[in-house]
């Protein structure tokens, strides 16, 4: 009897981590930001307050990054964490720090060199927050769960309808009731609009959802004409959201003359939009990591195999639609109240195109990409405007200043084509490439 040849058991390669590149440099980055922040607010009473925030955040970041550095092998639990590597954790901390400091920087009267637009940026940042939320939800549906849909603008309209009914007609500018109501309505209507997905795929699903878009547009126009006439719904002025009087003890809430705290102006809006956007994006990122989220990916890759693995395909698809639509509807409410009025042509086919541009430029099927994409989408016109007015080699080209918005549009379309042809992961992919290039370059220079 011959001996059975056993192959040598495969040795699992132990994963060990060195401190990451960013982790090494993070203190320096933050230290470099400190004089900038402080310099921009000299003369401000909040000087010492901000200085101490900076120092505390710096200390906390360094401490946590050190504490959470995994040494030795990763357990499964560690491997499934939201921020797996020290680098991830450092980036998360840096982003949080940036988001907390950003409004103070933008509200200061700092004037950057060469007339770079600063005052208009606050509005742009707030729009980016709203759009990032909607685009991330769209990406969750289209990228992660592979259900092609063009109905997301319909859900923005649904958000506006719910905002109009609950927030304006029932409770006179109470956005806080409208938000959960829009989430519920979005989930229910989203699950209904997802029903064709049980039978149709790819192209046909795209067409069916596009049909849903037109039906929703009809509902929107009917609703508008029935209750508001042709001017559209007014979400600002007396309909602006406000903080209830029993919450006025909260820190940072300083009621106006008439004893009310109305959410108006970019600074206050930022503190409403930023937490909602960050929480909903974290929520989506977490959903992707759960069993449901992995089921999305399995259904996207091959629904028949997914059903053989014990995944309820119908449930998974409908859940993806409901989740995405709920969040898009909420962003629709936020957009309505932030922008202040929604009319007949607020939701046209160009809006559908805009969302497509955002997710393509940012990076298809990546939630991070949705954030990059919406930032790019809103900052591009600002940068372009600045370049037309200030940059000496652009300023003199009459052609550019004659057709500003058209050239914006052309650049966006051109970028979509170029990115899809040459770099399908978009800005998020470029960012990943840059990070890996940077760490490799660093590893080469000091091995």
């Amino acid at each position, binding site marked *: 009897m011959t001996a059975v040849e056993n192959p040598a058991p495969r040795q699992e390669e132990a994963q060990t981590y060195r401190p990451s590149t960013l982790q090494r440099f993070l203190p320096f980055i933050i230290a470099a930001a400190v004089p900038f922040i402080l310099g921009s607010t000299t003369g401000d009473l909040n000087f010492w307050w901000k200085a101490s925030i900076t120092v505390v955040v710096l200390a906390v970041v360094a401490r946590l990054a050190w504490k959470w550095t995994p040494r030795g092998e990763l357990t499964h639990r560690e491997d499934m964490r939201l921020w797996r590597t020290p680098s991830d954790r450092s980036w998360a901390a840096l982003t949080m720090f940036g988001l907390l400091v950003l409004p103070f920087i933008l509200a200061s009267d700092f004037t950057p060199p060469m007339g770079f637009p600063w005052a208009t940026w606050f509005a742009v940042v707030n729009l980016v927050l709203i759009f990032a939320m909607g685009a991330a939800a769209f990406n969750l549906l289209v990228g992660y769960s592979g259900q092609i849909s063009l109905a997301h603008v319909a859900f923005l309209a649904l958000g506006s309808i719910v905002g109009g009914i609950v927030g304006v007609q029932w409770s006179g500018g109470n956005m806080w009731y409208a938000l959960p109501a829009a989430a519920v309505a979005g989930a229910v209507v989203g699950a209904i609009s997802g029903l064709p997905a049980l039978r149709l795929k*790819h192209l046909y699903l795209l067409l069916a959802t596009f049909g849903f878009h037109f039906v929703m547009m009809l509902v929107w126009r009917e609703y508008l004409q029935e209750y508001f006439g042709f001017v559209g719904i007014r979400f600002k002025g007396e309909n602006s959201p406000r903080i209830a009087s029993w919450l006025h003890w909260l820190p940072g809430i300083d009621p106006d003359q008439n004893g009310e705290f109305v959410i108006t102006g970019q600074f206050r809006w930022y503190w409403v939009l930023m937490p909602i956007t960050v929480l909903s994006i974290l929520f989506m990122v977490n959903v992707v990591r759960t069993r449901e989220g992995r089921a999305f990916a399995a259904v996207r890759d091959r629904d028949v195999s997914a059903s053989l693995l014990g995944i309820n395909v119908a449930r998974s698809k409908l859940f993806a639609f409901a989740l995405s639509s709920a969040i898009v509807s909420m962003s629709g409410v936020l957009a309505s109240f932030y922008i202040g009025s929604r009319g007949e042509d607020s939701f046209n086919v160009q809006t559908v195109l805009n969302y497509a541009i955002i997710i393509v430029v940012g990076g298809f099927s990546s939630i991070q990409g949705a954030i990059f994409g919406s930032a790019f989408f809103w900052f591009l016109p600002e940068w372009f405007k600045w370049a037309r007015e200030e940059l000496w080699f652009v300023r003199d080209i009459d052609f550019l200043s004659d057709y500003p918005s058209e050239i914006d549009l052309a650049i966006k379309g051109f970028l979509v084509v170029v990115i*899809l042809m040459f770099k399908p992961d978009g800005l998020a992919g470029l960012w990943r490439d840059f990070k890996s290039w940077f760490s490799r370059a660093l590893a080469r220079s000091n091995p």
Partner: protein
Amino acid sequence: MLLAFGNFTADPSVNLQLLIGGLALGAIYAVVALGFVLVYKSTDVLNLAHGEFLMLGAYFALTFLISENLNFFLGVFVLLLVMLAFGLLVHYGIMRRMVGQGFFAIVLITLGIATIIRALLLIFYGPTERARLDLLPQGSFEIGGATVRYVDIIIFGVVAACVLLFFVFFKYTRLGLHMRAVADDIEAAAAMGIDPDKVYAMTWAAAMVMAGVGGLLFGHVTGAIDRSIEAIGLRAFPAAVVGGLTSLGGSIVGGLVVGVIEQFANGHLGTKWREPVAFSVMFVVLLVRPTGLWGRKDLERV
């Protein structure tokens, strides 16, 4: 009431007028749907930019036939030649690199092309609307109290001729055979010595020429030529789907059916019901018979 229904009229002449208007609209839809079908049939690409292609055709028709004041036949010839060149440009410049990419990426790239065309037309022609074309005979005659425009009959004839032409082309010519082979199975066709690249280029050129014809015809019946006429591309989707996205003859039947339904919805329920009704019809057809009335069924292997 939210969903107020208009008053249904039993007046036969009104209904006849709606029917004729619907057939005229349907003929236009058929032209556009034919463009979708040509591209989808052989390259499996859903071309969302077809409305913009058509707008390009209409504006070029303005340039060549009105501004340059060329002879009608010479102008049409130049128009179609330019559109053909654009089709080759779209294929060799962009779509060629996208072969084998994911379905949605290709849909999005057509949206990108649409955006570029829209922006360029705005830059070069400006936002002002132009009067519609008036090169085809403008008169009309009456049948049973309903008006029929000569233009509609011409459009109808042109569409039928195009469908017939493509039918003969696909059935009896060598290149048509190649196109059908590539559409059926690109790898097997390539193994038999057919160059798919060339076939795709021909397809895009043909679709662009159809868009040129469509722009020329639609330019005669639209209210005015401006940037909003691209919407005809989206409005023709139900027609293409109802007829079946892989069927040439289906596009003409689908166009007529959807055009008539839309026109009746328009007349009896109001303008705002036009698109929802058309897309609902499409929706029902998709649920009952996803490949449309005459579409090719694809088997899916696990």
